């Protein structure tokens, strides 16, 4: 822009600003713009609120899932810890034992005898339930040299072998303090077998 042109350019600017000053913006334009802005704002608020609620719901759902998963995991870990520290005291029944023949314990002669005796005793114990007292007889111990000899009130002699006496003693079927000449009660079962011999403290009543 040369110095010659400057007054003209200034005049042009002056005319432009003069024209601008005379220009009036229609008032209705602002009203329409502001109404539109408020409508858009309301719509946006609704969308925002919907989004907010949706986000809140989704967040709660995710948190619930995470908490639930955490509890499940914690419960599992706790259960493992509990099992590790306090194993269950439940006894498991062994129904079948698998064992090689060679694993069977080797018994000595004494042990074999004890085992056999134990078996006899167990058999007796199984049967003894049947040995209920059926009848009793009073008798007197008259001999103890070769087993016991018991003389009943009807003058019969009941002979008990030494082995049976020994077994009766073991089984506590014979009172230990019975002495020769003592009055005793002999208990018989239904089959007529002696089940018990006990001393009578009262006077003999045969």
């Amino acid at each position, binding site marked *: 822009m040369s110095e010659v042109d400057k007054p003209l350019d200034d005049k042009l600017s002056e005319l432009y600003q003069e024209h601008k000053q005379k220009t009036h913006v229609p008032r209705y334009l*602002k009203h329409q*713009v502001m109404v539109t802005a408020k409508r858009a704002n309301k719509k946006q608020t609704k969308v925002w609120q919907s989004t907010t609620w949706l986000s809140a719901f989704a967040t709660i759902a995710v948190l619930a899932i995470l908490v639930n998963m955490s509890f499940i995991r914690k419960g599992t870990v706790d259960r493992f810890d509990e099992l590790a520290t306090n194993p269950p005291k439940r006894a498991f029944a062994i129904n079948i034992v698998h064992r090689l023949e060679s694993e069977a314990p080797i018994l000595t002669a004494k042990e074999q005898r004890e085992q056999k005796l134990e078996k006899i005793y167990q058999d007796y114990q199984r049967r003894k339930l049947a040995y209920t007292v059926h009848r009793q007889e009073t008798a007197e111990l008259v001999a103890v040299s070769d087993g016991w000899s018991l003389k009943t009130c009807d003058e019969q002699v009941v002979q008990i072998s030494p082995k049976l006496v020994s077994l009766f003693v073991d089984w506590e079927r014979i009172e230990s303090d019975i002495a020769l000449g003592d009055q005793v009660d002999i208990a018989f079962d239904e089959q007529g077998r002696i089940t018990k011999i006990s001393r009578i403290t009262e006077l003999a009543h045969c």
Partner: protein
Amino acid sequence: MSIALTLKGLFSSQQTNEWLMQKYVISSDSDALSKLYENCQKDLYHFLLVSANAELAAEISQRTWLRVIEKKHLYQTDGRFIAWLFTLGRNQLIDEYRRSSKWCDADMDIDTLVSDKELVPESSSDKLVSMLQELPFAQREAFSLQQEGFGLQEISTITHSPIETVKSRLRYARQSLRKALENSYE
């Protein structure tokens, strides 16, 4: 961003258009938009009135503000708000020209667009308006934008034209207007 904006507003003695627009973008505050409108509407409307009649200028300015409301999220904070507003307004005007039969060929160079008696103010007896009517559209808008206070870079951005082209248009516009002004004095 909202806190920073609030603090800036508290310590700033004057609420700039950029601050108001940022506030409107963040909070959709109607008061901020109202103040922006008060600050910028006359400039926009006058710019449009130079290139169109009053009815079209009003229509385009209204559409421009509606675009501001719709496209507020696209506002870039690195430039002046009024430059963005004029860009939107100018685009709306060009679109309107293209829609109408005034500018049939969409690929036609804007430099070839001449004033149309139906588009410029008819009843104005203003001397400058009469002179502007004689200028091509591109020169007229370049001159008008410069008078509205925009620099070469901003005019280049608003009109989507290279700076050299803008300079050229301004030079031709001034030559024509000076000549017309001299003739009017004779």
